């Protein structure tokens, strides 16, 4: 199912052991981030606010100034180039061209004082040797592809004249105008209503099928993950705690954080008692525990969790989790017995 496990497909983006630290911060904001995406594949990075998922995306796009966020280790190979090593100028040539990004809030990421047609055309003009007329033609074509009704009459609209869903379509049109190899989407549907979210997700999947773009989707919504992902990477407090194929993550969750997160989401099915909760909250950067960062909130935590950071261990086919005590039922068997007996 997943393309990474298929040796014939080469990943288009390979991130390895990425660690980043904000200037003056006592700990790395993200640490040990490794993942790969293949053409046509969708990788979801999931986690709660402050887990570092957006910082990861921004650093790959070269949108974090190096003076602020220092790369402590790692590589991000895009073809034969390391995105983390590229100059600002080289990065600007890639951005919006072969690697592009869409953001959560389409209103603030579109320029309110330019017509949407011009904004899409600008992306094309910046990267391709085309005339203004050709770029405008491409903009029209893209608006059509993202299914904006009566696209030719919308070309000269300003962002404020469009609804939230339409604005996100424009963002997608802009991001895909140059047929990028990688599209990073940071919570693209979080600000939208469910019916509009369904439309946008459907659209993204359809376009991805046509173009073979690799999609890195950042979200906190497990429903969206289940709907769209091929592979999933779960982050907590800047660390990757688990990654694997989507079916394996949902059917065989290993890390206590993944398990806690999944069981604290209410189900749309019939009610099944109180929600499980993860106690406490995400630690601030200056209070990061050493060892496993989930230790203070983990019901299974033992003494050594505070001391040593568990490595990402392979627990199933291309399924890894960073927990000293996974799989949990073999480490805490007496509880399972009690559970079965009650």
């Amino acid at each position, binding site marked *: 199912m997943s393309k990474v496990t298929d040796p014939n497909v080469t990943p288009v983006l390979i991130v390895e052991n990425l660690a980043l630290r904000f200037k003056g911060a006592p700990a790395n904001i993200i640490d040990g981030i490794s993942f790969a995406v293949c053409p046509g594949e969708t990788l979801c990075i999931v986690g709660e606010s402050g887990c570092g998922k957006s910082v990861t995306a921004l650093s790959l796009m070269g949108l974090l100034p190096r003076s602020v966020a220092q790369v402590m280790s790692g590589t991000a190979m895009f073809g034969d180039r390391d995105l983390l090593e590229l100059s600002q100028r080289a990065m600007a040539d890639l951005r919006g061209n072969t690697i592009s990004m869409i953001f959560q809030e389409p209103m603030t990421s579109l320029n309110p004082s330019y017509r949407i047609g011009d904004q899409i055309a600008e992306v094309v003009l910046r990267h391709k040797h085309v005339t203004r007329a050709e770029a405008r033609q491409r903009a029209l074509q893209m608006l059509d592809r993202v299914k904006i009704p009566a696209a030719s009459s919308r070309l000269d609209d300003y962002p404020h004249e469009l609804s939230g869903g339409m604005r996100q379509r424009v963002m997608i049109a802009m991001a895909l105008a140059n047929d990028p190899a990688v599209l990073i989407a940071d919570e693209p549907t979080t600000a939208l209503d469910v019916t509009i979210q369904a439309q946008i997700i459907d659209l993204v999947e359809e376009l991805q099928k046509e173009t073979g773009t690799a999609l890195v989707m950042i979200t906190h919504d497990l429903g969206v993950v289940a709907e769209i992902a091929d592979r999933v990477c779960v982050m907590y407090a800047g660390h990757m705690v688990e990654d694997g194929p989507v079916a394996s993550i949902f059917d065989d969750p290993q890390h206590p954080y993944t398990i806690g997160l999944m069981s604290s989401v209410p*189900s749309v099915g019939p009610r099944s008692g109180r929600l499980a909760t993860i106690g406490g909250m995400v630690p601030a950067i200056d209070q990061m525990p050493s060892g496993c960062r989930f230790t203070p909130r983990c019901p*299974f935590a033992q003494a050594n969790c505070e001391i040593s950071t568990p490595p990402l261990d392979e627990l199933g086919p291309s399924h890894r989790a960073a927990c000293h005590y996974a799989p949990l039922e073999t480490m805490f068997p007496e509880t399972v017995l009690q559970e079965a007996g009650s």
Partner: protein
Amino acid sequence: MRLPTRDRIIETRSATKRFASSKGLFGRSVSVGAVNEVSLDIRRGETFSIVGESGCGKSTLARLLVRLLPASEGAVLYEGNDISSLSEPEMRRLRKDLQFVFQDPFSSLNPRMTVGALIEEPMKVHTSLSRKERRLKVADLLKKVGLRAAFANRYPHEFSGGQRQRIGIARALASGPKVIVGDEPVSALDVSVQAQVINLLEDLKAEFDLTLILIAHDLAVIRHMSDRIAVMYLGEIVELAPNDPLYDKPLHPYTQALMRAIPIASPHGRSMDVSLTGDVPSPLAPPSGCRFHPRCPHATSLCGTEKPALTDVANARMVACHHWEKIAENSQGSVREPPRSENAEKRFALFREISQRQEPVTAATETQIKLSERSHNNA
């Protein structure tokens, strides 16, 4: 089907809210109907939820129910008395019973007041408690919402979003209300914190015999918490039903579309369906007849001309659709979550078991205390 009078705590009769909206340079004034002729009964002690997409008027309706906004037309009754015509001082006395929890825990607490003063304020207005009694009650309320009594001396900015929402809830409880309206009370919170606040609201509802009115757009949260649910579209209620029947067999085509659009948290249930195209029309110029007809796959010419009334159908359900019987026959909207795998079930149970054994509330609070104390000392 109407509830018996003694069971109704709040009811509305053709409640309408219009806002003036000026259009054009010279302010030709136009009014926007945010809520249009809504009639409903809320049962004492239930959790009643209002769902719908942004702009459907759910927040306006919630404000009408407790008269944070006056109705433009129609009546809103609390305990059988019309509150839409009460004077301000009379209304202020009623405020004690009708409290509100807001969505944004960051902007709904005065940053210049301590947490203790914030929670004490409603008691000053509504009760005759002495200063000392009030202080004791503040400490008690803080404990009830899972915070430490010593937090009373701190300011809102020292707390996380989840903690602030707990403070907002403690403040709402301070006057000893009978009804609490929560306008998206958990939607600004992260999933794990959201679950804590949902459980807290449920516990407090049972402990204080509250009637809970919830506004939310998250259909899973609504499913988990509600007894009855009203679905709104463009200012009107299109369907009203008890929880399980609504999710098992939605009758109105809009409800069906809404249900089908929910992403199910299971990769084996990839079913999300785009059955609803386009956006919600502008409330400035609502469509004629049934307001949903331009987006409805079942619409006929009748729908464009005649507005369907919200009518009783079987089993305490109401629906506003000319063709609901035909549509219901092949209802495709029901939400089914595929069963979880054995491994997942086993580990969820294990997680629940072990975290409960550690007394979840105290464990959570202890961590918060430790963290807050550290940040407090650093500050």
